[in-house]
Each structure stands twice: as structure tokens, then as C-alpha cells.
């Protein structure tokens, strides 16, 4: 009973907090701005659930066919790390906010940084794959 009350309480607070946000969103901007915000809200979900999740499934299916058994786990780790960090680096990699009058903004060679990160990841995946493959061979020979 107490647990049910706690849940109802948390849920009720959540509804009030969310409604405050909705009211704030709808009362501070004109219709064009609201349409833009709504578009972005919907497009985010569609891009994730439709494109990104689908692409991940496809990539995983291909990797399972192509990669030797010992490489699968290291490759999965490398994909999660490099994939998610690449995604969050899209704004700087694309330099979309660059301004000719401000050299202190986006003042790094981001593709070079990405390349270093990608090479380190690939190297780690290869090292781990070789290590796992040798360990598997040793186990088989012990048997």
C-alpha cells in the first residue's frame, strides 16, 4: 500500500512538472517557433527509432557474418565507444557553427582528432581480438 502511494506520488509530481513545462513551451513563442520546436522533437525520435536503430541492427548483422568469433566482442565494444562519441561530435566535425570573425571558436583540427580516436579504437579491437583468439587456441589445445 505504501509502495503504491509512493508511486502515485512520484507520478503525480511528474505530471505537474511536465504540464508546467508544456505551458512554458506554449506561452513564450510564436507559432513559427513552436512549429520548429515540434518538428525537432518529432524528428529526433524518428531519426533514432527509424534510422539509427535500424542502421545499428544492420551493421550488427553484417559484423556477425564477417567477423571471426574472437573479434566479435572487441568489435562490439569499439562500436559502442566510437559510434556514440562520433555521434556527439557531429556539430564540431561539421564545423556548422564556425564564424569567420572568431578564430577562438572551433579552433581544433577535429577530423584529425577523430582519426586518432578511431585508430586507437581499431588498434585496441585488434589487440583484444588477437589475445582472445590465442587464448581460445590454447584452451582448445589443453582439452
Amino acid at each position, binding site marked *: 500500500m505504501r509502495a503504491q502511494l509512493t*508511486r502515485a*506520488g*512520484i*507520478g503525480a509530481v*511528474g505530471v*505537474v*512538472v*511536465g*504540464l*508546467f*513545462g*508544456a505551458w*512554458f*513551451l506554449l506561452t*513564450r*513563442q510564436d507559432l*513559427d*517557433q*513552436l*512549429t*520548429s*520546436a515540434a518538428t*525537432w*522533437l*518529432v524528428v*529526433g*525520435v524518428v*531519426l*533514432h527509432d527509424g534510422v*539509427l*536503430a535500424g542502421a545499428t541492427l544492420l551493421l550488427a548483422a553484417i559484423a556477425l557474418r564477417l567477423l571471426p568469433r574472437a573479434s566479435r*566482442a572487441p*568489435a*562490439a*565494444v569499439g562500436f*559502442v*565507444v566510437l*559510434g*556514440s*562519441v562520433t555521434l*556527439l561530435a*557531429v*556539430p*564540431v566535425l*561539421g564545423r*556548422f*557553427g564556425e*564564424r569567420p*570573425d*572568431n578564430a*577562438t*571558436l*572551433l*579552433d*581544433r583540427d*577535429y577530423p*584529425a*582528432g*577523430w582519426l586518432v*580516436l578511431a585508430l586507437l579504437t581499431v588498434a585496441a579491437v585488434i589487440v583484444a581480438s588477437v589475445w582472445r583468439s590465442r587464448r581460445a587456441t590454447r584452451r582448445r589445445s589443453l582439452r
Partner: protein
Amino acid sequence: MVRRARRTVKVPTEADFPSRLRSAAVTARVGMWLGICFTICFATGLISHYAQNHSQPIPFPTSPSWGYRVTQGLHIITGTASVPLLLVKLWTVYPRLFVRPPKGARRLLLTGLERGSIAVLVAGAVFLLASGLANSSQWYPWAFSFRATHYAVAWITIGALLVHIAVKLPIIRGALSSDVEDTTYDRPTATRPGVLSRRGLLRTTWVAAGVAVLATAGSTVPILRKVSVFGVRSGDGPAGIPINKSAAAAKVAPAALSGDYRFSVAYGEEERSFSRDELLAMEQRTETLPIACVEGWSASGTWSGVRVRDLLDLVGVPSGSDVLVVSLQESGPYRETILQGNFADDDRTLLALALEGEPLALDHGYPARLIAPNRPGVLQTKWVTRLEVSA
């Protein structure tokens, strides 16, 4: 052939995702850290929003001077760490997207409400992270007001998160109090071993979040500058401090460099006016204060100039008065800002004329700029030409 073609267009069901990694035991653990990150993001976001409000019924504190630097740095760091956490969490629950709706009006309504709240949560979470990341690199590919929308969607998302926690509380409790390999809360069809163990997936997620932070946090944590390959700013700039808005972008260069520049301080009818040389002839104070931007970068500088309180005293402004700070900028939302009374009275608040012992660079606000402790960078007004208090 025909059968295969039909199979490829079929909408998947839950059973098409047999990996036992897509388990509530993993979801609850990643979700807990995501919830912690979102909570820190929300709290620091509220602080930042309040610090930028004109009207502050409870005065925003002036100490510690590095407070806003820390809270806004945390805001961006926890937001960035949330990207891998959110992606892995959504991956673990993806099959639930394809659960068929139940039969019966009451159950259909309840499920509809629950799934609606999750749609709001996912849309809000993706929106907040994407718009925040874009904003931190000054990329604005939208028509809405960033500040109002990011703030409103944060409230909506936290509300939906609370509803989600309320609905899932028994599962969250059960999953977190049992071993990660426990299958109590698994979908019956999710039994196939993954290429990683569940612990392996969790460790991978923590590593990804850590790499995300290391790769970006150098914009605000100086010792990480070398490794932050995706930091929006390396920390370089005139006198070692980056610039947010240049003099060219603010279109102030002719007025700022003109020999006619005058700085005035006014209290009702009482008004005094100075050239930059006359300001330099007054008692100069030196303070080490950070400049901390809403976009998450920050840097500490040693500023010298005239104490703002000394200037206000010249025209008899009573203590505690809010001060209107006017910039040479001809337009823009920050042409005029309010310096709250407690900031105006703080001894460390300067009308800065120099940075690191050099005359202020034009892009840092030459001839004179405001620098106050514990204040968002957008309110550290540059190219200041007037301080005004109505009598």
C-alpha cells in the same frame, strides 16, 4: 523467393530481438546513471536559467566566484556523458517498441498513456541532448528560441522521467537489488547470449561515457585541453581567453576605437563622464575571475580596472541598487543588461580595462567591459559605455 520477400517487409515483433543483453537488468543499471546525469543537468540548468533572469527575488550569490563555472561545466559534462548512456539504454528497450497493443478498452487506455509518456520522454531526451550539443558549438539550425525551448523541454522531460520511474518502480527496485545476470524481468524470448556479457556491455557503456567526457571537457577543465579532441574551444585567444562574440559580429569596432569614446555613470540627474585615460587614472584594482559561458566553456583571467562600486559612489548610488549596463552594441538582446545590486556592490566587480596586464583586446570588450564574480558570460557585458541607476 516470394516467402523471403514477404519476410523482409514484415513489421518485427518483440520475439525478433532474442538477445539476452536487451534485459531490464541492464536497462535499470544504465537508466540509473542516466537518471543521475539528467538530474544534475536539470538542477544546473535551473541555476543557469535563474542566473540569467532580470528579476531575482532571491539574489543570485556572488560567491564563490567560480560557482557558475562549475555548475555550467557540470551541465555540459553530464549532458555529454548522457549521449552514450541514452543510446545504450534505448538499445536495450528497443524491442518494446514492437509490442502489440493489448485487447480491452481499459488496458488499451493504460498502455496508451504509458507509451505516450515514454514517447514524450524519448523525444524530450533526444531533443535536449541534440539541441544542447549544437548550441555548445554555436550551431543554431532552427527557428525556435533556444533558451526558452531547452528550458521548457527540460521540465517536460523531467516530468515524463518521474512518470516513467513511478510506472517502473517495482521492476527498477527488483532489477537493481538482484544480480545483473538474473532473468526474472527478462522477456521470455530474450534468451540468446550476446557477443558481450551483460557486465561487459555495462562496462563498455561506462567507458563510452568516460571517453565522451574526456574528448570534450577540455573546454572548461584546463588539464584536459590536450586530450579533448572534440572540445569546442582549446582555450586560446587574446591574453589566453577565448571569445564568444567578436567585435565584428557585434558591429562595435568603429564606436569602440573612436577617440570620442566616453564612459558615463548616472544616478537620476547626477551624471559623470570619463575618457578611457581618465578611467585609467583612477584607482586600479586587480581581480582573478573566471569567464564562464552558457555554452559550457570557461577560462580564468586576471582583470584590472576600476571597481564598479567606486564609480557608483561618485554619483551617490545607494547600496543594493540594480544597475543598467549599456554597451556600444547597436542591437541584440545583451545591448543592455541588468547588474543586480549585490553584484554591483561586490568589491570584485570591475569595469575592466586590462586583462593579464595588457590593455583589453577589442574582442574582449575594449575600451571597457564588465567583469563580476559568479555570473554567466553573456551578462559580463563588453564595450560598456554607460552605467545607469534610476533615482
